[in-house]
């Protein structure tokens, strides 16, 4: 394999994986606190719309990011109000958020931008640019190792915008929060045995709302990535199942940050490879249909969940509303 291909593969794997990583971490926080989050897809979609609309209207990256996170946090609180405060069904609430987001973003998009649900593209100044645009050319110029380092390191690893590195750093951040802080210990406890946490005098309600708030911020970043970095405008249903794929990655990673990251990278790599393998005949296998590779993340998750490879252990109190009197 030549260096250019390696560089391009690494680069597109990271590009595809970034929103998955952010969403999977968001789901991890909610689900480890005991709240099922099927609404990742809807929150990311609405955040993508908010970032695109905000960016186009105000011409400011920070306002766009703020709006994206704000909208996603509000949806998270709505989920909390329905399921944590009023013990509604968590799956039904998540589905409701997904359906509302799919409809409302298009309705508002048509009303505000008159382009069949698309937003006007955000300006170049608002978009997230690569942090080190000169990295590839700079490394390429190095004598000897430049031919390899240029594409692989320069394009593959250093050619990205800030949000890609933020997402990677947040994996460590969430790990530290979950396993090295008092808050994280309580969060994990409330997802396993909320009665015990309550008996220890810590509010189950507050912990779950805190988890949902962080969840909203992360979903907001994932959505903003789609419209500020990957594309320049919002298009109807542009998340196209990424939220569900992040959920799959979260389960694949056994509700733990680092394995979830690896699952996201694997799914991102499969996506990057699927496009390049189209029409290519592999030695020994022949032509692999692109749909087979696209289906692989879902198929692998089903097989893993069924316990045929390894074993998944979900948080014990996942999906159960907490009623104090019991």
């Amino acid at each position, binding site marked *: 394999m030549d260096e250019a291909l390696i560089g391009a593969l690494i680069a597109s794997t990271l590009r595809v994986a970034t929103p998955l990583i952010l969403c999977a971490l968001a789901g991890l926080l909610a689900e480890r606190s005991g709240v099922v989050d099927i609404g990742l897809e809807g929150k990311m979609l609405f955040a993508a719309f908010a970032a695109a609309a905000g960016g186009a209207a105000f011409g400011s990256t920070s306002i766009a990011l703020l709006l994206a996170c704000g909208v996603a946090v509000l949806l998270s609180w709505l989920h909390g109000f329905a399921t944590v405060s009023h013990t509604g*069904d968590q799956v039904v609430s998540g589905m409701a958020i997904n359906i509302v987001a799919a*409809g*409302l973003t298009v*309705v508002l998009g048509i*009303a505000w931008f008159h382009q069949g649900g698309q937003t006007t593209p955000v300006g170049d100044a608002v978009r997230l640019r690569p942090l080190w645009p000169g990295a590839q050319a700079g490394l390429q110029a190095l004598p000897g190792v430049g031919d390899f380092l240029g594409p692989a390191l320069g394009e593959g690893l250093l050619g990205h915008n800030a949000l890609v590195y933020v997402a990677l750093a947040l994996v460590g951040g969430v790990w530290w929060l979950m396993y090295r802080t008092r808050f994280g210990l309580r969060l994990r406890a409330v997802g396993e045995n909320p009665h015990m946490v309550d008996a220890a005098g810590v509010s189950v309600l507050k912990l779950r709302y805190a988890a949902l708030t962080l969840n909203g911020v992360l979903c907001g970043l994932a959505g903003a990535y789609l419209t500020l970095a990957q594309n320049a405008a919002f298009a109807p249903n542009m998340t196209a199942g990424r939220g569900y794929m992040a959920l*799959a990655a979260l389960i694949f990673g056994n509700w733990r940050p680092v394995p979830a990251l690896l699952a996201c990278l694997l799914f991102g790599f499969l996506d990057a490879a699927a496009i390049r393998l189209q029409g290519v005949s592999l030695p020994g296998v022949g032509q692999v*249909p692109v749909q087979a590779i696209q289906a692989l993340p879902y198929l692998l998750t089903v097989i893993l*969940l069924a316990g*045929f490879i390894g074993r998944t252990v979900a948080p014990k109190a996942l999906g159960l509303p907490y009623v104090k009197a019991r």
Partner: protein
Amino acid sequence: MNLPRWADVLLLPLINLVIALLAAALVVALIGQKPLDVMTLLARGAFGTERGLSYTLYYTTSFIFTGLAVAVASHGGLFNIGAEGQATLGGLGTGLVALWLSQKLPAPILLPLMLLGGALFGMAWAAIPGYLQAYRGSHVVITTIMFNFLASTLLVYLLVNPLKAPGGMSVESVPFGPAAHLPGMNEALAWFGVAWPSSPLNISLFLAIVAAVGVWAFLWRSRAGYRLRAVGSSEGAAAYAGIHPKREVIIAMGISGALAGLVGMNEIAGVNGKLLLDFVGGAGFTGIAVAVMGRNHPVGIVLASLLFGALFQGGAEVSFEIPGFSRDMVVTLQGFIVLFSGAMAYVAAPWIARLFQWGARHTARGEVVKASGASNG
């Protein structure tokens, strides 16, 4: 603090529906349109003409199938998010039978076989997640979500490669022979001498009604249905009574998937006459809203399907009339209904109960005054 039964069954759902409608009206007003005008246009578009009514009932048909599918799983204690994928597979089963036999068999034999093919494919696609939940411990919600994606990818693969019509540009199969055509409502009514405009509405509407009655009879008038509901309300108690919960999980999912698979009779056999992409068009997800609103009862589901059928048809008409209004408004309302009637179904309950208590105290005090007055006199 319990509500009287009529309030729980009728009043509370009605209040939740009104809240959802108000939320949608607020959005309509927010984008600068008049909610009342939209409502009037929508109702006229859905019921005002014979053609409009036909389209409404055509949408209703698919929603009854998917709504019943979600409801049967729900009575077994399972949340089937996979009706979309099961309906896709059902259409595939219906279509494969038609592609295989439509030149060889006459319609009266072929059409039941197509129905069977659709039901069996849908059943299999739901029974696998059911089996995985019962025997392998994976959760049916996650598995059915994954199966939705697998179903759509499978359909794309088949239609791009082996089933693609040779020489055609679009991603679809060759048209079926005439024997595979399920009669439209206009043709059926013409047999009785009634003139009716041509529309996608076909006689699978009657199949949907039969399915609704069948689901009612199964759930509330058969031992098998009783077993299924017993597992749904308490797995432990059911097991103690000698019922096998694992088997019931698979049965509930199997029946659910078969019902969803019947969407193929409406869309593939009744309307399109060939296999194509995305013929389910979100009916599987609308089925969740329908089941939530219809409270998992066949009568409620038929009524809720009619409401959603009217919303989809009326919404399409409104989008022709009012620039800037899109059918996605109907999707939004659908989401609001799942939110307010489903996830937040009991948020309003304590308030209503308080109102009832206040009312009861009020009338009781009145009676006391009356009684004491009588003793004095």
